[in-house]
């Protein structure tokens, strides 16, 4: 489970002064559910997810991930999390198997368990044909499968996906979305950020709409439809964020 409590992140910018990238965000993600964080570019999605993955430290607030505080025990949190984004690239000079082995070892798996896990994952994702091929020689689809294998190797109960289909072709994107569904079906807690409405509609059990670092609306798709009297998610999104866009322009 993920429980964000007043999560905030401020950056100092020489030209613009203090920037509130994430501002007092609180939400809960339950096991066996997909929480979709929907927002425009620069809304604060990536910063929020990076804080949950303990890559960034919150300025204020905290979050509890699998019972561990992200500020107090970041290493324990990371051991329970699989983090995947288009920015999490692979080491080009390692083979697909070496890449997954490396992360398995960093997650504390012993060699026997690691071998078994890798065999299972490589069979499941149909990766055996390229397991000894270097990552820089892999196709985009193969790279995504290797990234998935890397996040799964320690069987984490929490999965964090930061715009994982960004820039991918339809077939590769489908591999990712079906993997996200599979994680939910396995009872994992899944949080997923995107600005693609159709992905949210298809995948998410709970949707959080974020803009200017603030969580402006939250609920299941049906609840949001009722609340904003709109059927189309894009229309709902525009209704929610439009006042903040105007405010941002006025400022």
């Amino acid at each position: 489970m993920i429980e964000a409590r007043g999560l905030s992140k401020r950056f100092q910018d020489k030209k613009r002064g203090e920037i509130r990238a994430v501002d007092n965000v609180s939400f809960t993600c339950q096991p066996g559910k997909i929480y979709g964080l929907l927002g425009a570019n620069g809304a604060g999605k990536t910063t929020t997810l990076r804080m949950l993955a303990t890559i960034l430290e919150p300025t204020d607030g905290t979050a509890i991930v699998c019972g561990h505080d992200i500020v107090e025990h970041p290493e324990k949190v990371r051991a329970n999390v699989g983090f995947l984004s288009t920015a999490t690239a692979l080491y080009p000079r390692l083979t697909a198997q070496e890449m997954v082995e490396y992360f398995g070892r960093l997650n504390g798996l012993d060699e026997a368990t690691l071998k078994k896990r890798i065999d299972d994952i490589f069979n499941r994702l149909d990766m055996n044909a390229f397991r000894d091929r270097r990552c820089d020689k892999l196709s985009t689809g193969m790279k995504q499968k290797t990234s998935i294998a890397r996040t799964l190797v320690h069987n984490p109960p929490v999965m964090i996906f930061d715009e994982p289909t960004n820039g991918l072709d339809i077939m590769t994107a489908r591999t990712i979305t079906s993997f996200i569904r599979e994680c939910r079906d396995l009872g994992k807690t899944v949080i997923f950020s995107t600005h693609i409405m159709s992905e949210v509609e298809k995948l998410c059990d709970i949707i959080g709409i974020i803009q200017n670092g603030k969580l402006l609306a939250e609920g299941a798709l049906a609840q949001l439809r009722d609340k904003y009297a709109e059927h189309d998610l894009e229309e709902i999104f525009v209704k929610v964020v439009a006042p903040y866009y105007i405010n941002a322009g006025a400022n």
Partner: protein
Amino acid sequence: MSLRNVGIVYRKELTEALRDRRTLISTIIVPLFLFPVLSVGFGALAVSLVGKAKEEIPKVMLRGGGDSPAIVEGLRKLGKIEIVPEAPGWKDQIINKEIRAAVEIPAGFQADVAEQKSDTVKIFNYEGEMKSEFASDKVEKYLKDYSDTVVKARLAAKNLPVDALKPFEFKRENVAPPEKVSGAAIGGLIGYTVILLCMTGAMYPAMDLTAGEKERGTMETILSSPISRMHLVLGKFFLVLTAALGTAALSVLSMGISFSVLSHYTGQTAGGRAAAAGLLLKLGPKTVLSVFLMTLPVAVLFSATLMTIALFAKTYKEAQSYLTPMTFVVIIPAIAAMLPGVELTPKLSLIPILNVSLLCKELVTGTYHWNLIAIIFSSTCVYAAAALFLAVKMFQRESVLFRS
């Protein structure tokens, strides 16, 4: 601290480094082939060019001497030079290398010698031009021999012994053992080479493991794993250190082999180098160990400093532009240590790089100033520890890791 995690990172970085062409070139290829090319290749070429220049019979123009047939005949019979007749524009001919030198015999020279009057025979040459210098040397040697013959004849005419002008002999004698003599000649070079290659060996892995990782997008991947940033930076640091020390060790090995090959082929012609080669091959385990131990904190200092600086860069190219000026920061004190007369003092023992360069010079000659060694080792360890601490701190700063 988990050594297991540090080891995992180190092993992975080593695997990647051994598959990286740029790292292999800077760590293995450059030190292994730089010295053979520079010393054996260029050295042999230089020896061969000098040999050919010495064998050449240079054209020397004779000016005057019409009334002094003895000296003119002597010069003609010398055989080592070709006498050409006097012609206008002789200075330009020397400058344009048409002739190598000119010798001017004053009017009435032979008569003046007979009457024991002193005259000056002038040799004109192109200073710094090797073949012109060789031609002048040959003429000068002949004139000196001729002068000696005249002196001997004058002494004999007065029934004086030849030794009358030489009341006593004097000569220099070296008391230092051959290792120390050769060590003094090449000790500075060893320090300079080891330090410079230590740095160039560390440079590429330092950039690849920091800015390179940011550029390739793998920084976020590794930061999402449970490894602590301290273990991560230490694993990376040990790989950079391995590259630095590996490069330095290979460079010393390559230097030894190159000099010995050079001495084998050039023999007597490169006496100094042959002695140096002999020394390099005779460097005892104590000296090698001492140089290695003193290089260790310097390598730590370089590895940590280069990593810290390169971490600020967003791309490999940007890191290169930051680190290239660092080469000068290292070269200047390393060269300063090779300057004649610069010797180790307690004050200089505190200046990083310069202190180890100077110390290497002494260690190679077998001189051990233990108090200065202690100052140098401990001060360099303090600088190295500070640099490593800074590297760990920088790896914990979000503004550095995610600089945009």
